[in-house]
């Protein structure tokens, strides 16, 4: 028991750039977050499509051709996987962000999640039928 102050708390530094390698759940989180890069890029692809549409049939055909390049195919494939992951990760957390209370009970989370999956399927189907 010294008279003088003997506290010396030790602070463990956390790497600002590699922290997420520490735990699988952080990796899952980062995977979810980087979906935005693909969504960003894909949205610009849509904007380009829109631009070509505005420029007339030739420009549009050119856009379609460019889509058909190996890079175009690869890009679309990648975006498909990534956005599907985004959708799943988004629906899975909706009951947390927007719980529904009926009387004394909360509607069980899995019901809300499943309802979202169902709606997702319906919306996708409508888009596909409409788009084709």
């Amino acid at each position, binding site marked *: 028991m010294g*008279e003088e102050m*003997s*506290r010396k708390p030790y602070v463990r530094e956390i790497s600002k750039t590699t922290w997420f390698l520490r735990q699988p759940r952080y990796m899952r989180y980062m995977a979810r977050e980087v979906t935005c890069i693909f969504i960003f890029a894909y949205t610009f692809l849509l904007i380009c499509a829109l631009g070509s549409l505005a420029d007339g049939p030739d420009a549009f055909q050119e856009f379609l051709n460019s889509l058909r390049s190996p890079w175009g195919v690869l890009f679309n494939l990648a975006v498909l996987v990534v956005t599907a992951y985004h959708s799943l990760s988004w629906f899975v957390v909706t009951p947390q962000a927007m719980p529904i209370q009926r009387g004394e009970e909360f509607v069980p989370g899995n019901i809300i999640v499943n309802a979202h999956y169902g709606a997702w399927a319906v919306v996708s189907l409508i888009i596909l039928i409409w788009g084709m």
Partner: protein
Amino acid sequence: MEIIKTDVAIVGAGGAGLRAAIALAEADPKIRIALISKVYPMRSHTCAAEGGAAGVIKPDDSLDLHFNDTVGGGDWLCDQDAVEYFINEAPKELIQLEHWGCPWSREPDGSVAVRPFGGMKIKRTWFAADKSGFHILHTLFQTSLKYPTIQRFDEYYATDLLVDDGRCQGFTALEIRSGQMKQFQAKAVIIAGGGGGRMFPFTTNGAIKTGDGMALAYRAGAPLKDMEFVQYHPTGLPNTGILLTEGCRGEGGILVNKHGRRYLQDYGMGPETPVGQPVLKTMELGPRDRLSQAFWHEQKKGNTVSTQWGDCVLLDMRHLGEKKINERLPFVRDLSISYLGMDPVKEPIPIRPVVHYMMGGIHTDIQAATPLPGLFAAGECACVSINGANRLGSNSLTELLVFGRRAALSAIAHVQSGLATSNDAALAAKAQDSENRIRALFAKSQGTESIAGLRKEMMHTMEEGAGIYRTGEELAKTCDKIAELRQRYAGIALHDKTSVYNTDLLQALELGSMLDCAEAVAVGARDRTESRGAHQRLDFTARDDQNFLKHTLAYYHPTEPPRLDYLDVVITKSQPGVRDYSGAKQ
């Protein structure tokens, strides 16, 4: 040594300490309040209370009924004026807590719900699911954050009261994180340090319940009262002592022996009631002392189930169904599954009686004042004598509130009564003595005794001699043993020489507190040659109102066993009668 000057200092930030602090802050924003606690307030053991808090609120209930249940439950060792004050204040305090946000369970119409509890003739226990104490503690702690005048000293361990000029003027405390001693100077001190169940091996009490508050007052000259009355709770988990609340039985759980037979009717608590339809004050809803004693008899008859953790009886709740268990007793289910690997929905749970609560404590009057001027006490560490020889479940959470506030009001009155100025030099000298004592303990390294070793011996002898049933012979042995342990305590060795967060030192200090309290328990029990409430003697089986309708007062002596004195029980309107839990006499 740093000196912290304040008006009122409170030792302990559990239910009682926090309630006192809030009452002080509300009464007068000019009062400086120091609230010190050896753990962060929400770690205090009030958080473990599950069942609920009693207070008359429903139209079918009355203050008289609560009075009768309490006094009869306490086997007439209660001071009836104190009980009267208590039951009058109880509903107000519980409503006050509701106004502070306590999430009490509700009736469909939005009014607070009440549940039945052992020894209570009417449903009057307010509850917040099965985490009542937890919610009370957190509500109080969070509410206390509203008041800037409550200055908290978290993780400070009070070591000695400072008494000068015949009154208590503060205490010394160890700042745990730095290992430095501080002197708290206060015009009034309230002790709210909780109970001391840790002096027994099987207990529902957390590690911090080591009787420090009682020992502080005791060593400073205030007597401990009725320490021999130690409550066993009939339904603890056998391996950890974790409590399964009385609410289990309140909701309809039953106790059966190894033959699957309910047995309480054999011990004066019958006639047997239908399964799942509990009747108040009989069978499973009899008082704790009787239920624990019935266990002991069943064990002697060989009717208990032997498990890897020792002898048990079974608490069967299966007939309640999963829905009700989840709704009313979710914590109980969680605890059983987690710590015993057994699900009460599917199987009966083995349980045994475990030490739960100390009816005794620092002697206070109905004002929460101790005989030492300037010193007040409230909560489990105090003995205002509303619990008598056996506390009724759910009276103690209410007691924290009622007498926590009462202690605050008395402290204010004391502060405002115009005190002589304190003699700083004298206080400093006493504080220095205290520091020297702690330093000497800290420096001990040659000793041959270990803290863990002494603690084990203490627990063992307490269980042997001062357990559910006692005899003069066993008690005499326990008294001798504790006296011996107190001497050997001087020979302990401390291995940890670091100032910062030295838990070795803390455990040594806590062991000192427990030994002092344990001696008061054992000596009090040895000399009370009767059976009453939780104090049951096999050699004196009858209650003896002639000689023992009295409180035991134990006065500390540094090297010898305590000196005992007796004080008459205050009786106002209920003459001692027979405690009847047969349900026959409706």
